[in-house]
C-alpha cells in the first residue's frame, strides 16, 4: 500500500508574514516549519504503517529550497522517503496550479491514499485536497476525524457539517484523497534516533521538467486570480463597556452579522 502525505512548509508566525512587491507571500523573510495541520496527516500515515506490513509512505512537498526541512520533519515522524518539487517557475502558483503540480507528482509516485492536512496556515483555503481528488479522478474524504483502512476500503468519520455536532461515517474505495483534522490523533514526538535516522533517508528533488509540466502553465504569470490590493487590516479587537442592555444588543448584532443568529 502506497501513501503519499502532503507536507507544506509554512511561515512559523503568521502574524509576522508580509507580502513582497509582486504581492506574493514573502517566504524568504520569515522562519518556516512543517505546518501543524500536516503533522496530523503524517501521524495518520505512521499509524497506518504500524498496523500493516505493506505500507510505504512518501512525504511530498512543493516549495522553495527551505521546504525540504518540512520533509525532514515528516521523515523523522515516520515517512520512508521524501520528494521535493523545486522549480523557480513555481513562484506565485495559485491553488489550481499547485494542485496540478501535486497531482502530477502523486501520479508519478503511484498511490492508494493521498493524506493531507485540512487547511494551510498561510493560505487557509482548504481546497487542495478536493482539487487533487478532482484531477486524479478519485473520491475525496475531507476533514476526517478518524481514519481506518482495510483491504481496499477506507473508513472515516467526520462532522456532518450541519453545525449540530452530528457526525457521519463514510467509506470510499482506494485510491482516494483524505484530509484529516487536528482531532484525528495527536502527533507523537519522534525519538532522537528517529530524528538522526531521518537524515539518512532518501529525498529526491523533482523539477517541472521531471513532471512533464510546461512552465507556462504555473507560477504567477499563469495564476487565474489577480491580487489588486493588499492593505493592513485595522486591529480587529474591539472592547466595549456599556450598560447591560446595549451590551446585549451589541453582542446580538455581532451574532447576527456573523450569522449565528
Amino acid at each position, binding site marked *: 500500500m502506497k501513501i503519499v502525505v502532503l507536507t507544506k512548509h509554512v511561515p512559523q508566525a503568521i*502574524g509576522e*508574514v508580509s*507580502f513582497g512587491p509582486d504581492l506574493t507571500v514573502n517566504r524568504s523573510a520569515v522562519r518556516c516549519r512543517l505546518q501543524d495541520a500536516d503533522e496530523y496527516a503524517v501521524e495518520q500515515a505512521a499509524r497506518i504503517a504500524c498496523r500493516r506490513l505493506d505500507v510505504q509512505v512518501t512525504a511530498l512537498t512543493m516549495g522553495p529550497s527551505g521546504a525540504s526541512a518540512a520533509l525532514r520533519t515528516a521523515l523523522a515522524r515516520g515517512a520512508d522517503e521524501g520528494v521535493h518539487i523545486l522549480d523557480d517557475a513555481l513562484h506565485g502558483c495559485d*491553488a*489550481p496550479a499547485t494542485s496540478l503540480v501535486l497531482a502530477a507528482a502523486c501520479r508519478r509516485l503511484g498511490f492508494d491514499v493521498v493524506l493531507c492536512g485540512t487547511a494551510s496556515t*498561510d*493560505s487557509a*483555503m*482548504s*481546497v487542495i485536497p*478536493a*482539487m487533487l*481528488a*478532482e484531477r486524479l*479522478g478519485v*473520491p*475525496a*474524504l*475531507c476533514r476526517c476525524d478518524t481514519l481506518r483502512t482495510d483491504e481496499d476500503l477506507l473508513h472515516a468519520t467526520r462532522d*456532518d457539517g*450541519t*453545525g*449540530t*455536532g*452530528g*457526525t*457521519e*461515517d*463514510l467509506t*470510499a474505495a482506494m485510491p482516494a484523497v483524505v484530509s484529516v*483534522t*487536528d*482531532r484525528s490523533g495527536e502527533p507523537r514526538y519522534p525519538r532522537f534516533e528517529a530524528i538522526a535516522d531521518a537524515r539518512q533517508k532518501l529525498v529526491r528533488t523533482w523539477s517541472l521538467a521531471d513532471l512533464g509540466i510546461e512552465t507556462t502553465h504555473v507560477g504567477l504569470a499563469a*495564476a*487565474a*486570480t*489577480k*491580487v*489588486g490590493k*493588499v*492593505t*493592513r*487590516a485595522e486591529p480587529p*479587537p*474591539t*472592547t*466595549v463597556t456599556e450598560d*447591560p*442592555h446595549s*451590551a*446585549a444588543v*451589541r*453582542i*446580538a448584532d455581532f*451574532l*447576527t452579522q*456573523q*450569522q*449565528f*443568529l
Partner: protein
Amino acid sequence: MAKVLTLVERDAREGTVWRSACALLTLARRLGEPIAVLGDTPDEEMVGALSRYGAAEIWCPADADKAARATNTDQAARATDTDLLAALAQRLDPAAILIASTPRGQETAARLAIRLDSGIITDAVDLRPGPGGEAVAVQRCLAGSYLVESTIIRGVPVITVRPEAALPEPHPAEAALHTIAVEPSPQRAPHVVAIPKPRAARPALDHADIVVAGGRGVGSRAAFAVLTDVAEALGAAVAGSHTAAELGWVPPEARVGLTGTTVHPRLYLACGVSGSVRHRAGMQGAKTVIAIGDDPAAPIFKLAELGVVGDARTILPALLAEIRARRPPHDPR
C-alpha cells in the same frame, strides 16, 4: 444582464440554510441577475422565499425527485452539486458562481474550479463590481491581519463567501423554475454509510459549532442557569472553566482546558472566564471568540473579536431576552 449563480445549500443547520442562501442572493444582485441553484426540487414555500430575496430564476436537476427517493446511504447515481453547477455554467454562461464557505461548499467550489478550469477565491468577506463589472472579492488573510482584494481572470469566477459578507435584504422578484438534465460524474463521492448519533438537543462539546462557557465571574449557580438558557437558544454546547467545575456549576466533563476537553467551535462565547493559560490551551482553536467579563486586563480579551467589559450576571439575562426576541419570527424561512 449577466447571470450570477448562487448555490442553495441542501442541509445546512436548520434556520441558517435560508439565511446563507438569501445572503448569497443579496450579494449576487450587486454583480448581475441572481439565479438560485439547488439539488432538490423546491416546494412552493422555498420558491416564495427565494423570490422574495431576488432570485430571477431557480434551477434544479431534472431528475431531482428520483434522486431524492434514493436513500442517503445509496447516493451512487446522484449528481453532485459540482455536476449541477458545471452543467449550468455551460448552459447559462454566468458572470460568477457564489457558494457559501461551509466545509461542503468549499469542497464543491474546489472541484468546480478544476472542472471549469476557472480561478477560485475562497472566504470572501466582501464582494463588489469592479470598473469593468467584474467581481472584486475581499479576503481577510494571514490571521486577519491583511485585507486582500482580488479578481479572477480565467474562466467563470468561483467564489466562496463568508457569512459576514452580507446580511440578507429582501428584493421581491418572480422566480421562474427551470430544470436541467445533469449527468452524474463517475463515482467520486464517498458513501455515507451511517449517521450514527441521533442529533442531540444540545451538541456534544468536542464537536460543537458554538460553545458558551462560564467561569467564576458568572457568580452563582442561578446565574449559570441563565447561561445554559443562552446556550440552548443558540443551539450551543455548555462548557466551564476549571473553577466553574470545582464550584459544581458544570460537570467535570464539561471543563475546557489543558486537562479537560479541547474544543474547536466556530464561536466561543466566554462569560466571566479570565482565560488562564490552561483554559486557553483548550479553546484557542475557536474561530471567533466573544468575551464578557469585568476585568479588561483579563487575558481572554486578547483572544476576543468582541470583548464586553461588564457584569456577566446582568448582561446574560439581557442577552437571553435579545436572542429570543430575534430568533425564528425574523428568520427568512
